[in-house]
Structure formats: structure tokens, C-alpha cells
């Protein structure tokens, strides 16, 4: 009896082991058949900025879901959209808004001359307040608590690329913004690919990361 039970037990273990092996084989085979899209990385990291004029729920929910994250071209709002009933209307609306804004800016460019990522258009300038999310640094004016202004937003954000320093609460004038600069997150987790083209009170001109301000005003896109 005992030996029968023992046999049954060992048979069960053997069957489990065989089934486990079969499961692993099936999963491995399936794993090999899954094709990873070649441009997956680009699609995940490439931003599609929320149009400036877009003030509806789409933009709001997108910003809520990812701080100041750019919205991927795969995503509209905070949920997955994969052929659901909102996908085509939402994408359609986005395309229409994007085209309208593109046409608008094309008109602006036509009238204002072409600008090459360093425009100074006083008419559309806004004043930004520098924001340092580190509370301990907000009242200090030490080098350690300063925030860097870059000469080129697309170059490494350090060393010779730093042309100026600003501190929490200071005002700078921004004349335009790029929305596809290098991604930068501050210490509180607010992140952005927006970089503002700014002029400091001493006349220094450079680029301030969007994560270093809490801007709520529209400003022209740099071209």
C-alpha cells in the first residue's frame, strides 16, 4: 500500500516535471516567435508634444498622466488606446489640431522670417520664474544651489556647454521653446523635454530646461 502510494507520488512528481518542461518549451518557442518592432525604442522615446493651443481633456489628461512628459505618438490621454472606440476620433482630432497649428506657425514663419533656434522676438516673450524643487536650495544663492543655463540644449548639459547660472525665484525672459530637447527630470519627478530659450537679466542668452520652471503660459516654438 505504502509502496503504491510512493509510486503514485513519484509518478506525480515525474509528471509535474515533464509538464513543467513542456510548459517551458512552449513558452520559449512562443518567445522566439514574437517579433520586436525595429523602431520600438524610437517610438517609446520619441516625443510628440501636446500642441500649445490644445487645451482640452486630451492635453490635460496627458499632462496629468506623465507630468510634463511629451505624449508619445502611441498615446492619447492616460490610458491604453489599442483600437478602442476612442482611438480613431482621438487621433483624428489630434491630426486636425496638429495640422491647424502647423499651418498657423507656417504662416507666422512666413511673415516673421525664418528663425534658427535662437530667435529673439520681444513681442511674444514671456517671463519665467526659475523653480528649484529642492526646498533646501530655494533660499540659498550658493553655487551648489544654482541651476545651469545651457548654450546648446542638444549638447551634453555640462562643462563648456554651461553659459550661465540662475537660482530659484529668479525671473528670465523666454522668447521661444523647443519641445523635443533632451529629457530632463527634476528632483521631485517633474520631467520635460521642453527647453526654453531665455535671456537672463545680465544679458546672457541660453536654454533653461522646462523641468526648472513651472510655466503656465504659451510661448512660441523655436524654429
Amino acid at each position: 500500500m505504502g509502496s503504491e502510494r510512493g509510486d503514485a507520488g513519484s509518478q506525480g512528481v515525474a509528471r509535474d516535471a515533464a509538464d513543467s518542461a513542456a510548459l517551458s518549451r512552449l513558452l520559449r518557442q512562443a518567445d522566439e516567435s514574437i517579433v520586436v518592432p525595429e523602431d520600438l525604442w524610437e517610438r517609446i522615446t520619441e516625443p510628440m508634444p501636446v500642441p500649445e493651443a490644445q487645451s482640452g481633456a486630451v492635453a490635460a489628461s496627458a499632462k496629468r498622466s506623465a507630468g510634463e512628459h511629451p505624449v508619445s505618438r502611441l498615446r492619447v490621454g492616460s490610458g491604453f488606446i489599442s483600437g478602442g472606440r476612442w482611438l480613431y476620433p482621438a487621433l483624428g482630432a489630434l491630426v486636425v489640431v496638429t495640422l491647424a497649428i502647423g499651418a498657423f506657425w507656417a504662416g507666422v514663419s512666413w511673415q516673421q522670417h525664418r528663425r534658427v533656434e535662437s530667435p529673439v522676438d520681444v513681442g511674444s516673450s514671456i517671463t519665467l520664474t526659475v523653480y528649484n524643487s529642492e526646498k533646501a536650495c530655494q533660499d540659498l544663492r550658493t553655487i551648489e544651489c544654482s541651476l545651469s543655463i545651457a548654450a546648446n540644449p542638444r549638447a551634453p548639459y555640462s562643462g563648456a556647454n554651461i553659459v550661465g547660472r540662475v537660482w530659484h525665484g529668479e525671473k528670465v525672459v523666454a522668447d521661444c521653446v523647443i519641445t523635443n530637447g533632451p529629457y530632463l527630470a527634476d528632483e521631485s519627478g517633474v520631467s520635460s523635454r521642453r527647453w526654453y530659450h531665455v535671456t537672463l537679466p545680465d544679458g546672457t542668452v541660453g536654454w533653461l530646461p522646462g523641468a526648472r520652471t513651472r510655466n503656465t503660459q504659451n510661448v512660441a516654438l523655436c524654429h
Partner: protein
Amino acid sequence: MTTADSDSDLGAALEEFNAEFLKVLPRLYRRAVFLAGAARAEDAVHDAYLKLSARPERLVNHPEPYAYAFAAVVSAIRDSIRRTGRQVLVEQVPDSPEDSTGPIDVREAEWEATRLLGRLTERQAAAVLLVDLDGYTIDQAADILNVHRGTVSRARARALAALRTMMKAED
């Protein structure tokens, strides 16, 4: 960190994060296909990327970046399913898939695996993937998913039972 060059530190941390994420991306994507289907996999991985990039140092400094990112993908999928409901599972393997890009039997394996895992909850399916595909122990999988080891064991038992049922049906 209260340095003036905290900006550049953050930039450097993000570069490191991106490099690390890129390394595990293909594997993460394939796991997401198992758990959420191809239509949702990309969004799940993207959601995980956004979530993790808010604290880039956590992934970079994690002893098992893949495991950490995998847990984030599972979490993103669960959040998505809570919002939109679970997707319709494949009931039958199509006789002649139109979009087959490989040998039919290999594609069938994908469908069968998806059907099998579809009988489990997302967390249970994730546990099965960690143990039976990625080779983690039950205890490690439980740690990664932050569940009790019994949950992982039960998930595997259910997966094996489902596999047996499928095999019997085929016979």
C-alpha cells in the same frame, strides 16, 4: 543632492537609465506580448518607461534591472486592464494565419502560450513567465512581483493544469 550641477547629474542619470532600459527592452516587449497581447504590449512598455524614468536611478542601481522593469510592465498592464477591461483572448488558433512571419508551428506556440496564460490573472501569468521562461526560482519570482510564494506556486499549478487540458483536447 544639492548641487548646481544637479541638472547635469540628472541628465547623466537619464542617459544611464536609457542605456539600461534599452538593454532589457526587447525582452520586456516580448513578455508584455504574452501578458497583454501585441496590441497593448507597446503601450505597456511605454507606460513602464514613463513610470520608471521619473526615478531613473532606481532602475540603474537595481541589482536586477530586468526584474525591476518587468514588475513595472506588469503593474502597467494591470492598471490598464482595470481601466479598460481585459482584452478578448484568442479562442482558436487560426488555421492559416495571414500575417504569419515564421513557421506555422512557431506561430502556433505563441497563440497556445497566449491562450494558456490568458486563463490566469496577469500576476499569475507574470509569475509563470518569470519561473518557466526566465528561469527565476519561485521565491525570486515572488520577490519580484511582491507576492507570496504560494501565489507563484498556485499560478504555476494552474498553468500546468491548463497545459494538460490543452494537450488532452489536442489528443
